[in-house]
Each structure stands twice: as C-alpha cells, then as structure tokens.
C-alpha cells in the first residue's frame, strides 16, 4: 500500500527540512522524501498550499473509556483526534476503573486498534485507583503499553509515597507526569483566586496551589533522578521553578494548553461552568508569562487536556459541574490564535517532536524508515462550531471563535484517516 502526500511545504525540524517536498509512504513507513515522486499506485493526498509535518501527538487527552462512555469513547475521541490533525494521543488514567492494571490497559489498546484511527498511548496511574495510598504495578503497566505514569487530577498528597513511587520506577524509561494542584490550597474552588473571584463571591484557587506542588515534585525528581513532566502549567512561578530545576540538572519537561494561553479568569460573570477547568484560567500576568514561556523555550509541549463532558453535566451549577474542555478539534487553530508569531518549526516541535521524545514513542520526524504518520494543516481561517465535533464533548470556550489554522488531512500508519472533512477508519481508508 502506497500513500503520497504531494506538493506540501514539509516542515521536519529533526531533519532540518522546510521546503516543498513530496512524502511517500509504503506499507506504513516513510519510503522517500523528494520532489516529483512517482505517484503511480499511490493514494494521493494533495497538500499544495498546505503544510506537511510529522504526525502531531497530543500527550494529554481524556478518552473516558472505560466507565464514562456517555462523555467520550475511544472511537469518538480518536475520531476527534484525527479530525484535529493528531495522529496519536496519550490518554490519562482517570477512567472507571482507572488505568492501573495491565488488563485494563490492554483492553484500551485493543479498542483503540479496533477504532482504527489515531494511535493511543495509555498513561498508567501512579497509585492504585489513583487513590494516593498504594503504588501501581509499573513494570506490568509498562509491559502492557503505558508510556508514562500520572495520577492526573488526583494530585498525591503524600510526598513520601510519591518519592517511593519514583524510586521504584526509576529503572523504567517512562516519565512521571504531575497535575499540580495542592488539594488543600485549592479547597472548593471553582475558578482562579483573584479580583474576579472576590467580586463574584466565588471560591478561588490561588496560583500558589500549583506552585507548591510543582516545587515539591521537581525536588522529588531531583532526589530520585526520575524524568518528570509537568502537565498544563498555568503560572509564571511554575515556569521559574522549572527553569531553576533545569539549571540544577533535573530532567523536567512541561506542557501548556490552548485555553490557558488564550483566556483569563474574566469568563465567570454568567456563573456558568463553560470556563470551569483545572487548573483554572488565571490572570493576565500568568497568561502572558505562558506565552513568553513558549517563545523562550521553557515550555516543551502543546497539549490540549481534552476533557469532554455531557452538555447536561456542564450545565449544572458551577459548584457541581465537571471541569475541563474538549480540545482535540480546535487545538491547531487555538494555539496559532494565541501565538500568531510562533515560527512553524517551533509549532511542529511543540506538537510532534517533543511529545514523541518525552513519551519515547515513534514519530516526531518523517525520516525515511519512520512510521508514516503525517499531519497536514493549512493557514486557513475557520469558525468553530462545536455541534460539528466528532468528540461527544462540545464544551469549549473556543466555540464560535474564528481560528487562523486548521487540519486538512491526517495520515496514520500510511492510511489517510482524515481528509476533505471526513474521518475514514483505517480499514476503509485502505480499500
């Protein structure tokens, strides 16, 4: 089986390529890169006028299966992924049950395979049931396919347990990922603590709640030598702490979401939960620090924290409504909106090169012999209409906004799984 992505501007930072090139994929692997490659027998993706990049990897996604399939399924979530230009996603373990056993991880991978769309890389739990009391079986989980470990939103309270977890997993080349919110400082907060929360009479979470956990976990990373990744940073101080840790030789990376780059805590005047997310949207100084942190290289990864919920759930009272936004289908445009002057090579690094490296998964380049995962996107304005999402979740503060960039085609394992606005599972795509 041959697929030819023809005539696009190929941006492959690891190969130092930024030029119009054809990419030929044979039997799932890149076979050639060049100009005017032979298209006979090949399924052709016309990429003229568009940008061709190694497949984008969203390393922070909630697929909700098993356990909460009214919010999302592996099939709907991976359809959203490829429609948004992602060839792979890493899924967080806050399913029901949690991804804390090899059997569940294997089942997730089997269902992802059956869906035949994006690659799915499970992230295992750090503690059993994400309960923060017993460490999870890392070796079994890694053997089953886990590419990282995280307790996601259930930030472990117990520093001794977390230290032991990192020591126990030290010989596994699998990073730990921290969602940094001190549960005590956060309390019952529904938004950021600041002038807006004070005015509205709403409980606010101070940025300090993130900073103290970032500091703690970086120190545990330094102590144990474990590689560490800080999920969705939202404060200027977090970035300062990460810079400090790197200066001390700690192997730490971090990510930022489109919503924290685009929005601030001024979206609660209607007391709806549409802007409720963890960590919360912060104030202008923090948002500006995040933008600067992308431009100066402190931030390694763009990730969406794709968190779909039912419309009825999100319509509950602010205190009861769940946190998070669906993100896969707006990500490319939303990141471009927030950082219009970011060089395209950096854009590709943040969405492909770096997540592949951090997770230790294939991709990040289209060098000959690497997997045929390709993202084609264009500098083309479009208006977000959440009703058209493949995701079951329509909860996004970007709904209705005009974004400057979008995915136009997605190739996974040499199969065109998204093109002309249509999602095509791999089996159909191959026919």
């Amino acid at each position, binding site marked *: 089986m041959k697929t030819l992505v023809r005539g696009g501007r190929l941006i492959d930072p690891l190969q130092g390529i930024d030029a119009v090139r054809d990419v030929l994929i044979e039997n799932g692997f890149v076979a050639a890169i060049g100009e005017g490659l032979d298209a006979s027998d090949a399924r052709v993706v016309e990429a003229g006028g568009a940008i061709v990049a190694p497949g984008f990897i969203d390393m922070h996604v909630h697929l909700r299966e098993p356990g909460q399939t009214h919010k999302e399924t592996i099939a709907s979530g991976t359809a959203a992924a490829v429609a948004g230009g992602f060839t792979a996603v890493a899924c967080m373990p806050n399913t029901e049950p949690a991804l804390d056993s090899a059997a569940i991880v294997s089942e997730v991978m089997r269902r992802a395979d059956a869906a035949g769309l994006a690659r799915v890389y499970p992230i295992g739990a750090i503690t059993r049931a994400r309960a923060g009391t017993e460490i999870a079986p890392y070796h079994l989980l890694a053997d089953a396919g886990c590419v990282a470990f995280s307790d996601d939103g259930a930030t472990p309270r117990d520093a001794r347990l977390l230290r032991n977890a990192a020591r126990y997993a030290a010989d596994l080349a699998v990073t730990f990922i921290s969602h940094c919110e001190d549960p005590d400082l956060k309390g019952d907060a529904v938004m950021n603590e*600041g*002038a807006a929360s*004070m*005015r*509205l*009479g*709403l409980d606010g979470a101070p940025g300090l709640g993130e900073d103290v956990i970032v500091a703690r976990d970086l120190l545990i990373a330094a102590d144990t030598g474990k590689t560490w990744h800080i999920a969705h940073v939202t404060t200027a101080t977090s970035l300062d702490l990460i810079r400090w840790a790197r200066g001390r030789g700690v192997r730490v990376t971090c990510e930022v979401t489109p919503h924290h780059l685009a929005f601030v805590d001024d979206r609660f005047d*209607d*007391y*709806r939960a549409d802007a409720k997310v963890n960590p919360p949207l912060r104030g202008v100084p923090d948002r500006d620090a995040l933008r600067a942190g992308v431009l100066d290289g402190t931030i390694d990864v763009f990730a969406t924290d794709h968190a779909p919920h039912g419309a*009825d759930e999100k*319509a*509950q*009272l*602010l*205190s*009861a409504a769940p946190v998070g936004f669906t993100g896969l289908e707006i990500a490319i445009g939303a990141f471009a909106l927030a950082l219009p002057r970011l060089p395209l090579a950096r854009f590709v690094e943040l969405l492909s090169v770096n997540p592949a490296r951090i997770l230790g998964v294939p991709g990040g380049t289209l060098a000959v012999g690497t997997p045929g995962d390709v993202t084609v996107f264009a500098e083309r304005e479009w208006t977000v209409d959440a009703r058209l999402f493949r995701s079951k979740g329509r909860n996004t503060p970007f709904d209705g906004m005009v974004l400057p960039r979008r995915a136009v085609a997605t190739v996974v394992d040499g199969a065109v799984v998204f093109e002309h606005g249509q999602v095509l599972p791999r089996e159909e795509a191959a026919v």
Partner: protein
Amino acid sequence: MPARSLLDVDDLSPAELVAVLDRAVAFRDVLPPRDLLAGVPVLNLFFEASTRTATSFTLAEQRVGADVISFAPGASSLGKGETIADTALTLHGIGVRVIVVRHQESGFARRLADAFEGNVVNAGDGTHAHPTQALLDLMTLRQEFGHFDGLRVAIVGDILHSRVARSNIVGMRMLGIDVTLVGPPTLLPPEFARSGVRIERDLDAVLPRVDAVMMLRIQRERITGGLLASLDDYTQRYQLNRARLRSLGASAIILHPGPYNRGVELTDEVLDDPRSRYVAQVHNGVFVRMAVLDLLVNGAPVAA
C-alpha cells in the same frame, strides 16, 4: 425582551435606584392599595434558611396583592438533580411569574433568571449579592442624612464571605458614597480595594472619621477554617463595644444586617446605643421590597 430581574443593585441605573427608594418612602408614608401586583403569582423559593428576609418579602408581597406561594426546598433537592433550565420551565408552566430566590451558591439567582421567563428577585446568593438588603441600608442612610454624595461608610468584619458587603459596595459606589472596608487580611483580601473603596485594618482609626459603620456578622466556622485565630483575638481588634462607641461620632449611625452575634462583632451596649438603626433597617426592608416588586412587574416611573 426578557422580564427584568434584580440580581444585584447594579441591575438598576442610579436614577432607578433612587426612584425605588423614593417609592419605598412613599409606601412607608402611605400604604398603597393592595392591588399593585393583584393576581400575580409570586414564588418565594428559599433553598437556604431565612427568617427576616423571607418574612419581609412575604409581607411585602401580600401588601401589593400578589398571590404568594412559599416553598423551602432545602439544600439538596431542586437545582441538583433537575437542571436549572428544567426547574425554570416547570415553574413557569405552573404559572409562577415572579420568583424570589435565596440559595447558598453564588450565582444561583443569575442562572435561574437566565432560564426563567419571568422576574427573578435575588434574596441572597451565596457570598455574592443581596440587593434588597443593600437597598434597605441605603434607604436607612438617606433617611438619616438626606443625601448620599460624600457620605463616609465603614463596613467591618468578614467581607470575603458577605453578600451584604458586596451588594452595599456596588450600591454605595453608584451613589458616590466613600467606602472603607475594615477586617483582617484573611477575611478582607487586598483585591477588594478599588476606586472609592479603601481597605483599613485599624478600626479605632476609622471610627472617628465615618458617618456610618456597618458591622457584619462573624461566623464561628471561620476559626476552624484557619481564617481567624479565636473570637477573643478578633474582638480585640474589630469588635464594636463600649470603648469603641466613644470614638464614633455623635451623629454617626450603626447598621447591622442581622442576625447579631452578641459578644462577637458587637456587644449589648451597641444595640442599646441611640445611634443603632437596626429596627429602622428591618422596617424599611418591607417597603423597599414592595417597591422592587412594583418596579420589576409594573415598570418604573423614573423621572428623566
């Protein structure tokens, strides 16, 4: 056009606010005929317990001739299982046209008003707003001083958790009143400072300078929450008591939204002091609420 609601004081223009107070004064002077809201079904929906506010609203509603329904669903039933939109649709379908609502969550009144095809009056939402309380406080101030502009008012205590303070800050700023907030940093964070709103920590320095002092209720659960050390420690700096009454000006007045915690934010001497206006406040409350209902349902005769 959706029906008007009163969710906070600034849902009124400054001119409307004054018109509501004028109308409340007129009602106090001469009770109107009981037909201003004749046959209008008004639902008192109090998710959070209330004695004074619920009684005051009920009396106000009866005095304007409304069909009054009172329902205290408790904290957990309505608004949790059923969506707010469904609740609003159901109540409107039954025939309710005005809802007076109190709820323990900030923003509940707003969410209900956005979904309900009728008038909503906020009788207190969480720590956010309590506009009719602010209106009755403003009515009491005007009754005393005859004007608002340049008045100096101190609000003392747990500002962070006070919907009364928030609504008064909004209303007082609309009318040019100079507001000073006094309390410990845990209950009065610096974010409350803005144009026309000062933060002070020293009650003794503030008292001689103000025309009115509003003492907020202090709740004991703030101690277990780590926001206060002890009641002794609090009262030593922020309690209005016999000694501090001496530094309050002779023509100044004392306001309290109630209910009191005697011996906490104030002592018995304060309640007996001739400058205390608690009774005037609750008395005015009924007329303010009549005026608000009249405005929302019948429209405002605002002088241009």
